[in-house]
């Protein structure tokens, strides 16, 4: 069983123009194990994406306090590629387009990056695995010979992120708003993909604004984030409660002094 721990995490970003540091995460605590699906919900601008980017090790996020541990080892000093090879995966909100690199070539390189030099995936095994996952995600084979994300529609890009997830088989996958911009059929397909990964060796952290996704991918744990930290943790019912009452209700219930984006002045 693998463990991902976020301990008292404080993260700051520097504004490009003013050069001022701004603290976004104000002490996040989170522990998850493989075999579990966690969901994070929270109002706009509260730091959910900041948390996912920081776990993955994307540039631009400065950890000012706290730690992130994978199986007990701090990963803060590891570059993004090493974190990925250790089993972390972040489905991107805006995947990059790369001309001249085919999707298939990219997938193979990503798989092989996690394997030993003398144990690279064979062409046959790769194609078999690819075919299986394409079918599962209802994707056309031609998508794999196209250049990586180039000219893909928004929904196709998201589907392609899930294809990568299925091909790379990470230990922990962070899915940041994977449901945004998806039509209902695509949403089901994406959920099917994630669910197919469920098992003892896979854990996922799902960030969403909509309870609907959680009907398809039922989480074990739901966290609510506000003001840069997790303020409440519960079961799937917590998501349903939020859907009904909104964040203001929960804030007031918890007696928090946090300003929400759409509060009146």
């Amino acid at each position: 069983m693998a463990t991902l721990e976020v301990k008292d995490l404080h993260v700051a970003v520097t504004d490009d123009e003013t050069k001022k540091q701004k603290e976004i995460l104000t002490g996040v605590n989170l522990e998850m194990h493989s075999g579990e699906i966690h969901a994070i919900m929270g109002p706009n601008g509260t730091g959910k994406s900041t948390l996912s980017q920081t776990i993955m090790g994307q540039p631009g996020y400065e950890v000012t306090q706290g730690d992130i541990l994978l199986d007990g080892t701090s990963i803060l000093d590891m570059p993004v590629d090493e974190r990925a090879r250790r089993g972390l995966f972040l489905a991107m909100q805006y995947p990059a387009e790369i001309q001249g690199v085919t999707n298939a070539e990219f997938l193979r390189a990503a798989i092989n990056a996690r394997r030993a030099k003398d144990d690279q995936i064979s062409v046959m095994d790769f194609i078999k695995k690819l075919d299986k996952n394409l079918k599962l995600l209802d994707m056309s084979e031609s998508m794999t010979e196209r250049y990586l994300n180039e000219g893909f529609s928004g929904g196709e890009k998201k589907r392609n992120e899930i294809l990568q997830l299925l091909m790379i088989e990470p230990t922990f996958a962070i899915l940041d708003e994977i449901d945004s911009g998806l039509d209902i059929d695509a949403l089901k397909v994406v959920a099917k993909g994630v669910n197919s990964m469920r098992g003892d060796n896979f854990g996922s952290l799902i960030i969403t604004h909509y309870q609907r996704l959680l009907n398809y991918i039922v989480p074990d744990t739901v966290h609510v984030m506000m003001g840069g930290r997790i303020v409440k943790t519960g079961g799937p019912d917590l998501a349903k409660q939020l859907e009904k009452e909104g964040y203001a209700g929960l804030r007031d219930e918890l007696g928090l002094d946090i300003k929400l984006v759409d509060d009146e002045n």
Partner: protein
Amino acid sequence: MDKTAAKEQLTAAATAHGEPAALVARRQAAFDHFAASRMPKMARFNFSDWDLFAKQPALTFTESTATPDLPEIKEEAIRLVQVGQTTVDVHLPKTWADQGVKLMDLFAALDQFPDLVADQLMAIVKPDENKLTAYHLAYLNSGVFLYVPKGVQVDQPVEVDLVQDSTVADREFNAHLLIVTEPGSSVSVLQHTTTLGTAANRASLMVEIDARRGSHVNFSSLDELGDQTLTYFKRRANIGRDAKVEWAVGLMNGGDTVGDMDSELTGEGGEGDSKLIAVTTGDQHVGINNRVTHHGQHTTGNINQRGVLLGKSHLVFNGIGEIIHGAHDANAEQQNRVLMMSPDCRGDANPILLIDENDVIAGHAASVGPVNPVQMNYLMSRGIPRPVAEHMVIRGFLSSVIAAIPAKRVREELIAILERKLTDGNL
């Protein structure tokens, strides 16, 4: 230079070579021009002090004994191999020979088919254009002639392997590939230039293509001359009415190189597509003019140049789209892009549009900079280590040109050279 002695040597050597009096006379005229004129200039690239000819030049023909490693050849393949001044292999299947296709040593062609060759040689690139073109004709010592008769569609690629013999020093490599395609014919040519040996020598390489009415030439070149070779090249196509010439050049030379690519759209409706990639390493200097000139109406020109710079190298791409007055409805597109892979390299992508007509379309794009960090980050976030990701992004960046080479074997060879250069350049 002792001009009198040089001219006497030239005359004696050409005569001893058994050349027709007319050619000897053209060489002499070219020599006079060479001796009297100055080096040509290139925008943003200075090569005026390059030793592109000897202090006391001499016309020499030397039999090469060096033998290159040649890949096995298939029965149906069309191939000519030259090592230095020696044609070591000509393979032209009978079906093509019977249809009048000619692939042969240039001097043999001058001898056997003077009507086809004599007036055509350096009719498109004129010897009196500049010092280097004059030098080329005066001291031309090897060449290949390819002729495709009217209406003949050559569906096998014609492979031309030019091997510079640098097993010894002081060997001039002044080689000329002359291609004539008659109306309605088509052919694709794969040129491969390499160097055998490590002596420091120069090369003056030219390609002339006369693509006559409605003919179609696909010309790719994999240039892989040695680190010690100083190269000047000029490749020019005269593109006739409704004719089309597509260039795909993989410039992988190890030494300093200056070159011109020229597509002259002389006929109405002609099309020129000029793609070139270059990878520069170490302290190499490479400057390229890639020009498409629209003379005819309804002509289409496209330039796509892509370069990758490593180490302390210096690479200049000038893209020149020229529309001459009267070339109505011409379409001139170009892009010139360079990727700078080290802080010490110097790159320049310079679009030049010279337009003297109103109802035309012209567009250009240029970029100079490092690999896109967003792309790099995306690949790395999937576990791909930085060097592998860099290779992938670079290959992708070059892919539009690599994909234009019609032979898979050559594409793979080019990618292998590219990978080797990137690895040697510590990427």
